[in-house]
């Protein structure tokens, strides 16, 4: 546990390290994992969404995701990709209205990976469910199988993609928890950053296996639920206060 004094001492030393270490490390990578090392199951990335803090009408996370991954639409909402979207729901019993972001739920038992004929839909050992676009043939079976409508098919020729988010016509794509950032040592996703910046802090990303990670603290103090728990998919995206 981090008590106050401990925190201050550590923060001070951390700040010192912050300004010394970068000159020693190559680039700005402050990764736990060296770039050459393969990801392991010692980590399991996940997200906690506090719907109570999410604000209706705010699309900061969506905009940030689009920016991060270069998701420029063609003005055709039915075929344009959406990796993250805002959904507003009303409880059937209590009439309580909540709004929240929806994205790939990163299931432990992902139906998309079960049905993918080539194995292009896959779960990385650290729990990220993503599409290997080198082997995706564009059959869209994963989109039929996903209970959360998390995936989009690239319906038209793309140009000017972002270097860190390759994507192209004829493949299926979805939220990959900003895998490029994480592999380079970032501990936040674009949506989390944006939500914090907007002052809502509804999205918390982190390592579910680390008991003191911010996402674990959020989960442990909120007793959140998973969507469609009846399907037993063991998603790594949790929702509180829906």
């Amino acid at each position: 546990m981090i008590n106050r004094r401990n925190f201050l001492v550590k923060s001070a030393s951390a700040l010192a390290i912050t300004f010394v270490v970068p000159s020693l490390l190559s680039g700005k990578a402050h990764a736990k994992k060296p770039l050459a090392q393969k990801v392991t199951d010692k980590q399991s990335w996940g997200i906690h969404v506090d719907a109570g803090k999410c604000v209706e009408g705010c699309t900061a996370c969506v905009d940030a995701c689009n920016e991060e991954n270069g998701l420029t639409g063609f003005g055709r909402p039915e075929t344009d990709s959406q990796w993250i979207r805002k959904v507003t729901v009303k409880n059937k019993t209590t009439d309580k209205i909540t709004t929240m972001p929806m994205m790939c739920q990163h299931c432990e038992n992902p139906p998309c990976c079960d049905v993918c004929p080539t194995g292009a839909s896959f779960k990385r050992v650290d729990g990220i469910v993503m599409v290997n676009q080198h082997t995706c043939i564009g059959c869209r079976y994963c989109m039929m199988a996903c209970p959360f409508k998390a995936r989009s098919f690239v319906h038209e020729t793309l140009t000017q993609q972002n270097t860190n988010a390759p994507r192209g016509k004829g493949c299926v794509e979805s939220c990959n928890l900003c895998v490029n950032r994480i592999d380079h040592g970032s501990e936040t996703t674009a949506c989390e950053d944006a939500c914090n910046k907007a002052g809502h802090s509804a999205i918390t990303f982190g390592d579910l296996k680390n008991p003191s990670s911010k996402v674990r603290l959020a989960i442990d103090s909120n007793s959140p639920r998973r969507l469609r728990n009846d399907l037993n998919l063991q998603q790594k995206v949790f929702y509180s206060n829906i």
Partner: protein
Amino acid sequence: MSEYTLQKLKTCRYAYWGIFLFLGFLILLGIASSAYMEHEGHYVTGMNNQIVWGLPHIFAVTLIVIASGVLNIASMSSAFNKKLYKPLAPLSALFAIAFLIAGLIILVLDLGRPDRLIVAMTTYNFKSIFAWNIFLYSGFFVILSIYIWTMLDFNVSKYSSYVGKLAFGWRIILTTGTGSIFGFLVAREAYSTAVLAPLFIVMSLLYGTAVFYLLLRIISKLQNINIPDEIVTNIRRLMIIFLLANIYFLILYHITNLYISKQVAVTTFILLEGGNYTTMFWLGQVGVGLLIPLLFELTNKENRNFPLTLTSIMTLIGGFFAVAVIIIGGQAFPLNIFPDHTIISSSFFDNQIHSYSPSIFEFGLGIGGTSLALIIILVLITNLKFIPTKK
């Protein structure tokens, strides 16, 4: 037809080339449609992120279902030892191959990356029903080829009944696999039931028999031969049995869904509130496809050809709608992401019934593929001896 020989199609040259060029033209249109779709991307089609499988899949699934169904006639002879059908067995196996190829080509040409077919053929995820189906389809193709060979080559004819039995077993598994593509999808209420597998099997029996009868009629017209009364009588009886089996499994499917409360909504959508989909279901699938044909056949006590032809056509139209209701209807109903909640708003259409209006390109691809099946049949029966003729 105890004494018979197998003959090539001997029709006048103009008829042959007329049909050939007509089908060839449709195939070229199909190629052009698919090339355009692939070049522009799928946004030019009616398919989108809501309705991800559309008209090409309706065509493909219908053709694959037909492919396993037309083998029926051969299976009667080899697996059930009905001598009556033996002369027709090679033709039946040929139809099966042709429809299988056509269905698969449509599926492949609709992929987002058809250029990566080699990936699909070399990289497998063995948990995927699609991957199983790739083996089932290619295995079916090989078995059928060997089966035709054993039937046409006198030297190996003693093996034909074994291969025929294998082909029969394989086709049952194959149609189970096709049905399971949908049946194993837990995400969508309209699909997640194992009843879809036997439903697909009885559908294949019905549509396959209808297609076989229609093609046999056309060939007998071109060849100037008569279909023996015994065959017509038997096909009529089969049609009645298959129509009843279809009605039974269709009722079972919907009753199951109506009983499982989380699946009630999608069932009432298809049966009552689905607008176009409800119309397609009652008018197309049930009316034109099952009830009217059943009525026609039950009253066709003299086993006349005309009502049988008519019901075969109606059955196939109904079959097309049946597959459409399953594929499109199942996707049109929005996913139940929040069972306890009503979705008020979403930027990704989570709260509305999805609509689908197919483009001319998807239709072109489907028609082109279907024409491919017919042209394969035409070319092969004209050049190889497939058509039984009395001695």
